[in-house]
Every structure is written in C-alpha cells, then in structure tokens.
C-alpha cells in the first residue's frame, strides 16, 4: 500500500523515519527491542566501573570516572527517550529488564577485579561499542540515529580516557604493568564476543540490513575492531592474549582467534560470573527507591490539586 511504499522510499533514500511516520510493526518492534537493550546496557554498565569510584587511586581519575559513569546514566536516559517515541514507556522497559525478559550486553556480566579493569573497559569495551554504534548514527530511525551521534561522541572520549589510563599503567611500576596486562587478558575475548555470534549463526541480520538499521555483519565489525585494537595495543606496549594474532599483509587485516561462542551463549543465558549480581543490584536500587518515587508522585499530585484549587 501507499504507506509502506513511502516507508520503503524514505529508507531506500537514506532519509529518516520519524515517530509520526507509518512503519512496519516488525520494524517498530525490532527497534524497540534493540534500543531498549542498548539502554539497559548503559544502565547495567554503570555497575562494573562504578565499583571503582570510591577506590580510584587519584582524584583526577576519580573525577573522570565519575563523569563517565554519569554519562552512562545519561545515555540510558536518551535511549529510553528514543524508545518512548515508539510507543513504549520507560517503566515498561525497566520492568522487562528487572524481570529478565529483556537482555543487556553480556559484557557487563564480568567483574571488575582491579583498577586496570576500568582502563580495559574504556579501551576495549567502549572501543567495541563505538565500532558497533558508529554505523547506527546513520540508522533509518531518526530519534535513534540522533541519540547515537551524541552517544558516540562521548564514547570515543571515554575510549581515549581508558587508553590513557592503561598507557599510564603500562609505563608505571612492574605491579601496575602487570595489573594492566591482566585486565587486558581478561577483557579481550569478552570484548570480541560483544559483536555477537558469527555471521553464519546470526539471526535478524538480513531484515535489519534492508531496513538500514544494521549496516555491517557481526564478523565485519569484529574484524574492524581487531584491526583498530591490535595496532593500539602496540602503542600501549601491552599484548593481546592471542598467539595467533598477526597482521596479514595481503588482506590488510589482522588474523585472530575467534572468542569462545559457547561461553558467550552461557553468559547470555544467565550463567556469567555476575549476571545475578547485576540484576539483583539494579532490582535492589529500584525497590529501595520505591518509597521515594511514590512520595514524589504524591507530592506532584498535591501540587496539581493546589494549583487547580487556586
């Protein structure tokens, strides 16, 4: 019909679909799921780094980390707002997160065990997120694309800060260097796994590509990340825990060992080291805050009544 043709034309022309426009139900549903999962990831992602806020070893780093974790909360807010333009409420989405009906990025189910992990998350996890997200800045859904532009700018700032943190450690004492290397060793494969299963096993991809939501395959993005990161590792003077890692002159790409996708599946299905802890933490914050939200609502209602009476 006419609406569908218009939708296809807009998407085909690399223009933006806006909230008021007609869109296929599957497009809407898929976007809601993706944006919500992305928002949830920002919110859950506050925990692993937040774990080091009170222990940051310098005040400058403490301030940087505080600003970063705050940015993550902010990203969560933009993204929930983008999802709300598709007709779902933040409360509904939050409820799906807390009840386990919607996922968040499995990377946050690993623990931060040393200060260097803060650097490794910035460098590797934010690095991988950027590779994943930069194409989304051209996504066909306007509100999502615009949120991603702002988010990517901040993420790349975070990625440089993570790199800088590791760079300092790598040039510090033996213990600091060891701490940095250990963190990179633990976060490397989980970061590779952030790009999802290999293309052969990936679902949803073809339709997402056609709708200009996804633009590159999982394996393409993973390769882009490896190429970028392998080079930076050299600058850091840290090694990546992959003996097969080598630059392939011919293709211009780095060869690397795939992550253990069976482990990825275990973590996604709930058995990562921190899945239960992360959700329980968020649920506790939510439950502990219930009386606060209730009171704010009661106060707002009173104010409305007072204004109406005045």
């Amino acid at each position, binding site marked *: 019909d006419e609406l569908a043709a218009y939708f296809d034309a807009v998407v085909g022309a690399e223009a933006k679909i806006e909230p008021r426009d007609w869109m296929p139900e599957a497009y809407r549903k898929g976007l809601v799921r993706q944006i919500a999962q992305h928002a949830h990831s920002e919110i859950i992602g506050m*925990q692993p780094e937040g774990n080091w806020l009170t222990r940051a070893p310098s005040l*400058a780093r*403490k301030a940087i980390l505080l600003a970063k974790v705050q940015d993550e909360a902010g990203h969560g807010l933009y993204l929930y707002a983008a999802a709300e333009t598709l007709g779902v409420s933040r409360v509904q989405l939050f409820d799906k997160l807390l009840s386990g009906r919607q996922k968040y990025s499995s990377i946050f189910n690993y623990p931060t065990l040393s200060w260097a992990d803060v650097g490794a998350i910035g460098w590797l996890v934010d690095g991988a997120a950027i590779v994943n997200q930069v194409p989304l800045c051209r996504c066909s859904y306007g509100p999502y694309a615009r949120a991603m532009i702002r988010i990517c700018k901040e993420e790349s700032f975070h990625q440089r800060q993570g790199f800088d943190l590791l760079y300092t450690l790598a040039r510090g004492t033996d213990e600091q260097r060891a701490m940095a290397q250990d963190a990179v060793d633990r976060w490397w494969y989980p970061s590779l796994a952030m790009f999802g299963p290999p293309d052969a096993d990936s679902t949803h991809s073809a339709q997402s590509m056609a709708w200009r939501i996804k633009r590159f395959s999982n394996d393409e993005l993973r390769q882009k990340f490896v190429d970028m990161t392998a080079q930076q590792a050299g600058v850091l003077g840290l090694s990546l825990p992959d003996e097969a890692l080598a630059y392939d002159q011919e293709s211009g790409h780095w060869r690397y060992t795939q992550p253990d996708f069976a482990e990825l599946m275990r973590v996604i299905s709930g058995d990562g080291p921190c899945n239960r802890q992360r959700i329980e933490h968020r649920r506790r*914050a939510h439950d*502990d805050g219930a009386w*606060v939200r209730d*009171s704010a609502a009661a106060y707002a209602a*009173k104010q409305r009544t007072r204004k109406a009476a005045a």
Partner: protein
Amino acid sequence: MRSDYVLALADDGLIAAQRLAEWTSRAPELEEDVALANIALDTLGQARLLLSHAGELEGAGRDEDDLAYLRDEQDFRNCQLVELDNGDFAVTIVKLLCFATYQHELYAALRRSTDERLAAIAAKAVTETEYHVDHARLWTLRLGDGTPEAHRRMTDALARIWPYTHELFEAGWIDPELLAEGVAVDPATLREPWLSTVDKTLVEATLAVPDDDWAPSGGRHGVHTEVMGYLLAEMQYLHRAHPGATW
C-alpha cells in the same frame, strides 16, 4: 595557619563527594543518579582546587593526591557531618540540604576573601552550590510533603543529622589572625542565614527543626566518628598499596 583553614574546607568537599559517589547506580531513579553524580563532581572539583591551594600554601611540596591519599585519619579536618553514613535517601537529602546550604553561605562570603585564590574558587563554587541547595530543597519538599512514609523517614533523618550541623558553625579552630586579615570567614556569622534558609524549606515541606541540643564535634581537630576509618581505608587503599606510583 592559612593552609589548615583551606585544608578543612577542602576535606569537607572531598569526604562529601566520596559519600555521594557511593550512591552511583543505586539512586531511586536514573535522573537522580545523574544529579547526585553531578553534585559529587562539583564538590570533588572544588575540593581539588582547595587541596592544591592548601598544598601550595603549606609549601611542603604536597599535591592534591598526597593530601587526599596519604594523610591519616586524625589529619583530616572535615566536619563530622560529611563523613556520616549515607543511610537511606532521606538521610542523604537532609545531609545535602544542611551541607550544601552551609557551603553556599560560606562560598558567598568567601568571594570577598583577601586570599585572592580562595576568593576565585569561591566565586565559581557559589553558583554550583546554589544548584545543590535547590536540588536538596526540591527533594525535601517532595519527601516531606509527599507520602506519610517519606515524611516519617525525613523526620528520622532530621533527628539523626541535625546534631552534626552545629559543628559547621564553630569558629574556635580558625586562627584569629585569618579572620582579622579577612582571609577566613567566621562560621558563626553564617548560622543565621543558614538556619533561615533551611527552616524555610523544612516548614514548606511540613517538617520541623528538631528540638535537640546535642552537638557532637571534633572533626576540625581531627577527631572523627568510627565510620571515618572505614571510609579512608576504602578510599586510600589502592593508592597506598603502590607507594610512589603514578596513576
């Protein structure tokens, strides 16, 4: 000593920011996670400027990190109010209302300090603390004049926190010369405007200043409460575990 005075103000901010940072990812709603982190950032930023200034005044080559991470408990001069446990959100809001209003009055007065650097720090800080006061005020209204449960929690929080506000206005620890020279502000002069602002908010929130004249103190002389040692152990451990390292 002028550096002792500046250090006490710095410690207030440093410890307050440390407690606020504990809230991160635990706030009642996302907007509040952002807001509390923001206030913590402002407060930490002010503390850093003050620590650097104190270090330079002292002239012993200590930078902000030496002062934050390598002093022992009895060398911290913050008021006890800021080190108290966060408690529930009501306790945090009451602490913030009392402390931010105090800082706001103090910085407003310190803009006229004859220590130019201090005056400049205060000039920047005063606009930041204005927002903190406003934020605490709004939550005090929402919680005091919202549900009965929140009202009860706010009343309990006031009972718990109020005694520690008296220390904010003690002047005995400040070198009289600094007051005479116009470097320092006499905290006793801040009490009246502070009380008037806080009381106005409490009344509007259907709450009241507790009738309690217990006035614990000691922070300005390095005598803290039992929670301070745990706070410092957590804050300083990593830094101290790697002597001489750069971060």
